[in-house]
């Protein structure tokens, strides 16, 4: 996702790039990896991402 954003945003203006990142990141916040990161942080262990 990071690489795709870097590629896409090279030719976008700032406002469009921000809208793009806001949309993608909001969707990723629903992903189990984001929850796992939070649980791992509280348990002081490394997260196990899928």
């Amino acid at each position: 996702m990071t690489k795709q954003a870097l590629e896409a945003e090279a030719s976008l203006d700032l406002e469009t790039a921000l809208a793009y990142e806001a949309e993608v990141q909001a969707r990723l916040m629903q992903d189990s990896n984001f929850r796992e990161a939070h649980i791992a942080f509280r348990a002081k262990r490394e997260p196990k991402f899928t």
Partner: protein
Amino acid sequence: MSSFLYELNANTSVATITLNRPERLNALMFETYKDLRDTFVRLDTEPGVRAIVITGAGRAFCSGGDVEDIIGALLGRDLEALHDFTRLTCDLILAMRRCRQPIVGALNGTVAGAGAVIAAACDIRIAAESAKIAFLFTKVGLSGADMGAAWLLPRLVGAGLAAEILLTGDFVEAKRAYEIGLKRAPSPSSWRVGRRWRSA
């Protein structure tokens, strides 16, 4: 404005924003993003302001979104509410870039997550030797492209380094940040910045 201080020096015309939750390494709360955005929108046309310094109280600049107030609270929200939040964070960056006054980031200690993007959205970054910067979004299961990081960073350090910094999420120490042009010459401590910027 409970989570940051605002001060305008009438002699220098420099406005200083000091993130002020030192016991939480100046972690941001929901209201902080909104209050900071509104402050930069206001400062765009504020009479008597010629430059803005943003810095952090205590041993950090900003450790990013608060682990409980933000990250914990976001878990379980629906897509619409999550999108409202990410749009707000992006609006803060847009307000910083649209603001006509130059913004100086006086970076100290931990500069992480949202704090790193706020630093990247400044016009000039001056860092204390203690400063270490991490765009750590991939380490919390998100895209490295957060708050415009994938737009801002390649334009500061070039595409190759931006990819490395965003993909790994690793800390960049002050010395390396200087070498790659992410910040201005090392400064023993960031508090002198206000003095330096009297001439801004």
